[in-house]
């Protein structure tokens, strides 16, 4: 048997195994196993899965709420930005090899430009972590 034939034969074997499993009588499939235990295991599985499905739906709902309020919070944060601290932060960032900034003197930039750039870099560092 060549290497290239192997996956096909294995796949065929798996497919036939499933078809046979579905065709076999329930008695042969159970092969002496306790039906009560299997039923109880299945119900436990459903219960655990339901709890997890609920957690995921809740997390998705929370994420949707956060995404909605973020733009408002963003503007509110700007009020707290200290322009001198933002300028110092940008001076340090200019020497940081992780960031590429246009060669432009900070003294030529408006306060709005500094805040905008500061916000972008903060967001970039957040995304990196």
């Amino acid at each position: 048997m060549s290497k290239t034939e192997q996956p096909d034969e294995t796949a065929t074997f798996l497919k036939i195994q499933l078809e046979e499993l579905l065709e076999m009588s329930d008695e042969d499939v159970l092969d002496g196993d306790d039906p009560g235990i299997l039923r109880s295991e299945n119900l436990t599985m459903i219960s655990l899965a339901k709890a997890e499905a609920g957690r995921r739906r809740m997390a998705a709902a929370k994420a949707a709420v956060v995404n909605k309020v973020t733009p408002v919070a963003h503007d509110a944060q700007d009020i707290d930005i200290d322009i001198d601290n933002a300028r110092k932060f940008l001076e340090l960032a200019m020497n940081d090899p992780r960031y590429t900034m246009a060669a432009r003197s900070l003294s030529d930039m408006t306060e709005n430009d500094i805040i905008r750039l500061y916000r972008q870099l903060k967001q970039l560092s957040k995304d990196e972590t």
Partner: protein
Amino acid sequence: MNLNRTEIEDALANLSPADTKRIKHMSRNYAHGLVYLTAEDLLHEVYVKLLAGERVFPRDSRPVMVVINAMHSVASNCRDREDDGAVNHYTETSTVSQNIEEEDEGDTVTTVMSINEVTPEQRLESKQSFAQIQTLLADDPELQDVATAWGLGIRSVEAANYLGWEMHKYEAARKRLMRRLDAMNKE
């Protein structure tokens, strides 16, 4: 037309014990050889996806087949990610443990690298190839014969005829083979 969440829960809760065993049997088959997904994880994930409405549950399909098809799909995706993903899950443990660099000033920097216990050799062994199954069945020629027929795509009455057996002999061998295959996947 698909089932809603309540109907899906009912359909899963009403699975017969034999169907539950069929599902568990196939979960072990599909999870075999995966590094990050056990058979239990696979089944749990599929139940979660169905109950969360992330996967559809066609109204006219046999519930056992819906679960098995979903497991096949989730396991295949996981296998593709493990095989082709950017992260190499199969780091050679004999050569990589930690990297110690001596700096000029004499400071020692130790870079600890994560080690995955799964070696390429183990990975190869865990891949359930048809040839390996045949080897593992070497102690029971009848089971090997049934497996050979299945590998050729021949099953049930056709396989019994192919092997020159009465159907009851084939059915008994088929039951033994299922038991052996399940035991292999549990190892």
